[in-house]
């Protein structure tokens, strides 16, 4: 990806071997750490104290740090927090060095001791040379007291430039003071941590010593989020072995030791790898700053950093010469080119003269053009096929006189030949200023335009709350001229103006609900696609994010549930884990008028349907990305049909493998290729499904549960009635009422002959009504038993339900007569009839007769007849179909089922209960408004509800549809809590 060629010295094997040697050094030789706090931190991670204060770091510890550190690239901001250097391997940034004692005086052109004003002057120059990316102090002023020297120098840099800083310091107190200043500039410590603008230049003492105060500095910087480097002066032959390669092994170990301590202090540490390993000149007894050794070791460190994935420290642009001359030019140019080509990250010491003792303000200007030049050299241009042939052709044929006249040349001139300031290209006979004269002119010009500052107060450079407020006032002015829609449309990625607008309107007294509606409308109109236009999902998504980013202004002011949103169930079908499209749909639908219930990935059919039941939803969105999984969409639709729910659940499908033809073939209600259009499709279809749902759905609260326990088919009940055991009877009744029964069914089928039954039922009715305040459902096929019961029935407790009649003439006539005479309700058994048509015909017959007798539909319960599902699953399917169809035709009729029947024959109780609960919930969605059952049915809690109930739904559907059902229904999910 990089447009830059990168220099390579070492093979993978050689790199590995350097790292290995360094690890061995840390593991065996160890690091001198006399600092108690640091030792504690290191030991906690498993480091050992080999001898007193010598800590060995096992390779596991070092590797843990190298594998887990998260800042292989990070941003070093400028002081204003608006621009940044992306510190990562391959990006190269330039800056001066620090702490020089001597400087060339521009007036005398002789070296003198550095003063604070010189630092200010140097920084001013560097600030005005765009080639320099960061600051270092350049000088160590003699006119400052040592205890405040480093903070003062830091302050001076801040006063004269906004560029990022690499700060040096001796003691931890220095760093603390520097950090205080930095926090002031950033606005706060927190603001600094968010966008750090300086890094601390920390150094071990070679070989392998982290002295007391150095450890404190590392710990302080790591805690405060101050980026750092830990670059030793591991110079060849002096502080480190006598070869570049040997020095690099030591420098690597030293740098890593600092990184380990920093990481263990704070794993979020921002660390710059590397060390300084320069040549030693034995004749002069100096460390060479212009010699080639340092460039070579920098290249090594950079290659190691590429492997370790860390930004890296480097140096260039310096010379051993005492003045700016040919040697200075050669040494600076060579090292800068090396720095750029190896791709080291932060290149310092630019402008150093006299092997690190002296600087000259002109040296910065001098180097600036060299930096431009090496950057130009390292940058590959574009090769654009076909670009130049017409020009060459034109010149050759004489259409263009020379290449100089070609437009192409003009267009590209500046990028190919950047302007030069001091490079001399004059003819030998022209009169010319010397290089040093030209540089000096430039230096003075800069100082004139930008007078260097010392002795001023540091001020915050980042926007403070006050200024943000001021900006808001500005925004307020502009938004007065615009409406919400215009403001919303403006920038897809910025939301501030809309926030201010909404806040303003709220303050002016507009209701948040109304504003929210306007906001959603603004969103809708912004993302609306005009006919024939290409859809840009990215804009819809960006505006959805914008809406989400501002909506809290309004929602925080709204009362709960004031936002009525339509529930929309969404998920990726079973077997499929693709989520990108689905998530986009979720996001886009949720910002308009939908409450998205995202069921996630691999959602089985049963789960979709359960979710629709739980959330009272009428819209389901199915997503699939594979041809092998999309048929699960079909399964869901087929299941909804089998459960008679399809007319009140709209299905929209989407995904890469879906097209209109497929959608049509499986009976989906809508299909959209683009996530951005789903909202529109939902808008179009929702009304139909919601109206069906509203017409048919019975809420759990309105579901009439008729307790079935008082039935003499049960031996205990039979005996209790025989013995007239009042307590038993009342306990049984109360238990059912407690669980939610609003009627109690009473059946006395096996208590002897008709006279015995009449007596029994009368005793039960009277006993119950004397003690309890609720109506009863009188259950017998024989009208004489019912009549006996009605004779003693207390109407003040609510009208009775006669259970039941059929089309049998005698039974029908008498039961209907009793119902009218005693102002009772009646259950009509439509158990006969094995087809839907036949069942409907039977019901029609009865309704016609009942209405003639003056019995209104409101007092009729239709029981479609429910047999055990294990043996006759079609009866349950038919029951649902019958209810759903009749609900359309006779909306005022009631419907009921003997629910317990369906579960018989499945063995396990829990499985039976899951089936009952699910069936009842499906039933109530399509119009079933009562059930004769165990009233606790709706409140059963299963151990894993989200598995048990969907499986049960699918099981029912599989019976209805002859699906091959996987035998997973035995799973423990059915356990009742």
């Amino acid at each position, binding site marked *: *990806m*990089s447009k830059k060629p990168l220099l390579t010295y070492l093979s993978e094997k050689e790199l590995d071997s350097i790292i290995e040697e360094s690890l061995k050094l840390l593991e065996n030789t160890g690091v001198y750490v006399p600092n108690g706090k640091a030792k504690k931190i290191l030991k906690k991670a498993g480091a050992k104290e080999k001898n007193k204060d010598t800590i060995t770091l096992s390779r596991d510890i070092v590797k843990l740090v190298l594998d887990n550190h998260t800042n*292989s*690239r990070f941003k070093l901001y400028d002081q204003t927090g608006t621009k940044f250097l*992306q510190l*990562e391997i*391959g990006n190269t940034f330039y800056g001066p060095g620090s702490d020089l004692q001597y400087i060339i005086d521009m007036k005398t052109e002789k070296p003198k001791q550095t003063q604070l004003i010189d630092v200010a002057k140097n920084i001013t120059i560097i600030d005005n040379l765009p080639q320099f990316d960061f600051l270092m102090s350049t000088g160590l002023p003699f006119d400052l007291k040592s205890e405040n020297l480093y903070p003062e120098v830091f302050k001076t840099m801040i006063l004269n430039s906004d560029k990022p800083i690499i700060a040096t310091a001796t003691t931890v107190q220095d760093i603390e003071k520097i950090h205080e200043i930095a926090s002031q500039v950033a606005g706060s410590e927190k603001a600094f941590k968010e966008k750090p603008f300086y890094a601390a230049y920390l150094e071990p003492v070679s070989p392998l010593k982290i002295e007391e105060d150095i450890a404190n500095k590392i710990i302080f910087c790591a805690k405060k989020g101050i980026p750092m480097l830990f670059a030793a002066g591991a110079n060849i032959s002096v502080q480190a072995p006598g070869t570049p390669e040997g020095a690099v092994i030591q420098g690597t170990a030293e740098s890593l030791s600092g990184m380990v301590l920093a990481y263990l202090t704070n794993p979020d540490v921002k660390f710059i790898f590397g060390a300084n390993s320069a040549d030693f000149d034995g004749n002069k007894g100096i460390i060479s700053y212009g010699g080639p050794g340092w460039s070579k070791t920098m290249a090594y460190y950079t290659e190691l950093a*590429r492997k370790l994935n860390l930004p890296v420290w480097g140096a260039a642009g310096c010379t051993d010469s005492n003045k700016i001359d040919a040697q200075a030019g050669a040494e600076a140019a060579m090292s800068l080119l090396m720095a750029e080509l190896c791709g080291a990250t932060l290149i310092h010491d630019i402008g150093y003269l006299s092997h690190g003792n002296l600087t000259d303000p002109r040296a910065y200007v001098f180097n600036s053009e060299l930096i431009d030049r090496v950057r130009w050299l390292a940058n590959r241009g574009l090769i654009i096929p076909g670009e130049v042939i017409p020009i060459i052709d034109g010149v050759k044929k004489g259409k263009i006189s020379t290449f100089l006249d070609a437009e192409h040349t003009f267009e590209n001139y500046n990028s190919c030949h950047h302007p030069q300031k001091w490079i001399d290209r004059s003819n030998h006979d022209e009169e010319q200023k010397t290089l040093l004269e030209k540089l000096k002119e430039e230096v003075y010009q800069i100082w004139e335009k930008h007078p260097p500052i010392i002795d001023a107060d540091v001020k915050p450079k980042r926007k403070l709350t006050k200024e943000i407020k001021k900006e808001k006032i500005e925004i307020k002015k502009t938004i007065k001229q615009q409406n919400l829609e215009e403001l919303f449309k403006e*920038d*897809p*990625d910025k939301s501030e103006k809309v926030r201010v607008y909404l806040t303003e309107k709220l303050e002016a007294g507009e209701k948040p609900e109304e504003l929210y509606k306007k906001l959603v409308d603004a969103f809708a109109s912004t993302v609306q696609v005009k006919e024939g236009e*290409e*859809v*840009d*999902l*990215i804009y819809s*998504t*960006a505006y*959805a*994010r914008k809406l*989400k*980013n501002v909506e809290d202004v309004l929602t925080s002011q709204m009362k709960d549930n004031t936002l009525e949103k339509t529930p929309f169930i969404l998920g990726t079908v079973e*077997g*499929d*884990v693709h989520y*990108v499209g689905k*998530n*986009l749909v979720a*996001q*886009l639908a949720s910002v308009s008028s939908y409450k998205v219930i995202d069921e996630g990935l*691999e959602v089985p059919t049963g789960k979709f349907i359960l979710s629709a039941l739980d959330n009272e939803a009428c819209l389901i969105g199915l997503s699939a990305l*594979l*041809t*092998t*999984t999309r048929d699960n969409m079909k399964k869901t639709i087929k299941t909804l049909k089998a459960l008679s729910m399809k007319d009140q659940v709209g299905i929209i499908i989407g995904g*890469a493998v879906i097209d209109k033809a497929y959608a049509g073939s499986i009976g989906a209600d809508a299909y959209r290729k*683009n996530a951005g259009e789903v909202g529109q499709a939902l808008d179009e279809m929702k009304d139909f499904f919601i109206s069906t749902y509203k017409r048919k759905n019975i809420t759990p609260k309105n579901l009439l549960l008729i307790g079935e326990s008082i039935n003499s088919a049960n031996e205990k009940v039979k005996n209790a009635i025989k013995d007239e055991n009042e307590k038993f009877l009342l306990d049984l009744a109360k238990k059912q009422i407690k669980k939610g029964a609003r009627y109690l069914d009473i059946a006395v089928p096996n208590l002897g002959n008709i006279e015995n039954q009449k007596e029994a039922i009368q005793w039960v009715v009277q006993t119950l009504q004397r003690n309890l305040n609720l109506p009863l459902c009188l259950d017998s096929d024989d009208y004489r038993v019912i009549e006996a019961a009605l004779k003693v029935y207390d109407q003040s407790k609510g009208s009775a339900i006669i259970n039941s009649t059929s089309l049998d003439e005698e039974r029908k006539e008498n039961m209907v007569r009793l119902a009218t005479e005693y102002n009772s309700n009646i259950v009509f058994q439509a158990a006969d009839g094995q087809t839907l048509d036949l069942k409907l015909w039977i019901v029609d017959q009865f309704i016609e007769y009942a209405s003639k007798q003056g019995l209104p539909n409101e007092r009729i319960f239709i029981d479609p007849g429910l047999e055990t599902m294990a043996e006759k699953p079609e009866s349950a399917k038919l029951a649902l179909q019958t209810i759903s169809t009749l609900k359309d035709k006779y909306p005022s009729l009631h419907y009921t089922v003997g629910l317990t029947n369906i579960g018989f024959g499945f063995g396990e109780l829990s499985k039976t209960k899951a089936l009952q609960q699910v069936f009842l919930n499906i039933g109530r969605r399509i119009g079933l408004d009562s059930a004769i059952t165990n009233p606790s049915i709706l409140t059963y809690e299963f151990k894993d509800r989200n598995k048990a109930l969907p499986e049960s739904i699918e099981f029912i559907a599989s019976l209805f549809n002859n699906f091959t059902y996987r035998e997973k229904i035995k799973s423990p999910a059915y356990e009742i809590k």
Partner: protein
Amino acid sequence: MTAKIIKLKPEDIKINKRRLERRVMQSSKKIPEWLNNEIEECLENCKHAPIGIYDFFDFKINQKSNTLKIKDKTFYSKSIIQRFKYAKEIGLFIVTVGQDSGDKAKKAHANNDGIKALIYDAIGSEYAESTADTIHEIIEKEKDYCMSRYSPGYNDWHVSEQKIFFELIHGKEIGVKLTETFFMQPEKSISAMIGYSDKNLKGCKNCSKTDCAYRKLTK
């Protein structure tokens, strides 16, 4: 031969920026500056760990039963038979770019940032695709003409055959596992079959996927 593992450096993977842009923005319009900035930001934040494993196999095709047999494993798919009937040898490979882009996409979605989610997902896909391209190129150096690659889940090649695919070539050696429903984890991974032959059969002409982002570019 035993399977070869190739560990690549993130910088070895050259991604096609235009193709990435097209993944993020489906229409052919120029991408706006704000979006470009967000893409750049996400590119900077993503940490990829591209790695691949591949191996070559002899195989037998039975056109009557639509099966392709490698060792004792049998794949059932008309489309792979059609595709590889002229191949001399079959290569299987798996590549991954790791978890980071997928994690970041999910996190962005959870933060209601659909744009970042889309971008991170696209970056993951693009890197995975480019990693597959790079491995493909490496294989191509070993074999003459490689045909374009084909993955379980394409067309009638059922995704459940990932199971035997992973029995032939061990994804776990490069950290790729299968879920119960045969999807790869990390999700930005690609498993593919390639064949090599005497003739050059590569290219869009042999591919039935018409709405692929790449096809738009090669038009």
